[in-house]
């Protein structure tokens, strides 16, 4: 796909892109992966600690402790986002902070506080799901397809 597109470019542009690629600072993929692993793992570990806490001290089972765990992580994210810490964590950890549910919460919360100058309805309300929207949209749609196939299959077997 990308190669095909490149071939349509004039030779001058292709030549420049090769020259530029040599000068481009490469992303430190391995280092980033290590950082993502450590921070992402740490967030999940904290999640597990919170889950265990809820199981031991409240009437939650392994199944039902998931929801309060997520809510707790989101509250922590709100504070970290509001005090301007989460974006620095994100620069350090990359996917390590983006992939856990805290990253989803950060996307929602950062959009919400960013757009306060535009008002609460059109600014906060209208832009809150700007970044997280696609996740919800395609999560719901793919879940619909998967559940549909499963249901139809079970109906005929």
């Amino acid at each position: 796909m990308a190669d095909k597109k490149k071939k349509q470019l004039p030779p001058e542009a292709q030549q420049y892109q090769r020259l530029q690629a040599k000068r481009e600072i490469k992303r430190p993929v391995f280092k980033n992966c290590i950082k993502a692993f450590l921070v992402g793992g740490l967030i999940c570990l904290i999640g597990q600690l919170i889950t265990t806490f809820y199981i031991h001290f409240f009437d939650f089972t392994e199944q039902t402790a998931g929801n309060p765990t997520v809510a707790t992580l989101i509250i922590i994210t709100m504070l970290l986002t509001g005090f301007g810490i989460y974006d620095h964590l994100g620069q350090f950890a990359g996917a390590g902070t983006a992939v856990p549910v805290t990253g989803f919460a950060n996307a929602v919360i950062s959009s919400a506080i960013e757009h306060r100058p535009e008002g609460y309805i059109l600014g906060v309300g209208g832009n809150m799901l700007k970044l997280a929207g696609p996740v919800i949209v395609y999560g719901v749609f793919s879940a619909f397809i998967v559940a549909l196939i499963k249901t139809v299959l079970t109906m005929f077997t």
Partner: protein
Amino acid sequence: MIFFWAFVVGGLICVIGQIMFDVFKLTPAHTLTTLVVVGAVLDGFGLYEPLINFAGAGATVPITSFGNSLVHGAMAEAEDHGLIGVITGIFEVTSAGISAAIIFGVIASLLFKPKG
């Protein structure tokens, strides 16, 4: 043990995300959307629930679990109400993450200003 595996499995899912960022040059939105769809499909094959049993929060905290619980909600409702349940049940299980994010988003917008 569960703590160790939560760390390792959660970390590995994040590494997959990082590879999508850096090697395939996808935006965060593309990456997270893909992971959610993958979570839904894995649950379709019945593979995500064993992972949760094994890794606990290592599988429930990453965004992939979002797809999993959407399918779960839909399936639970479908068992009771048939095909129409697939549509009505989707948010049954997932609502905590989305509603908490929205509620605390609004609260945050009342409390905080971006720091720049």
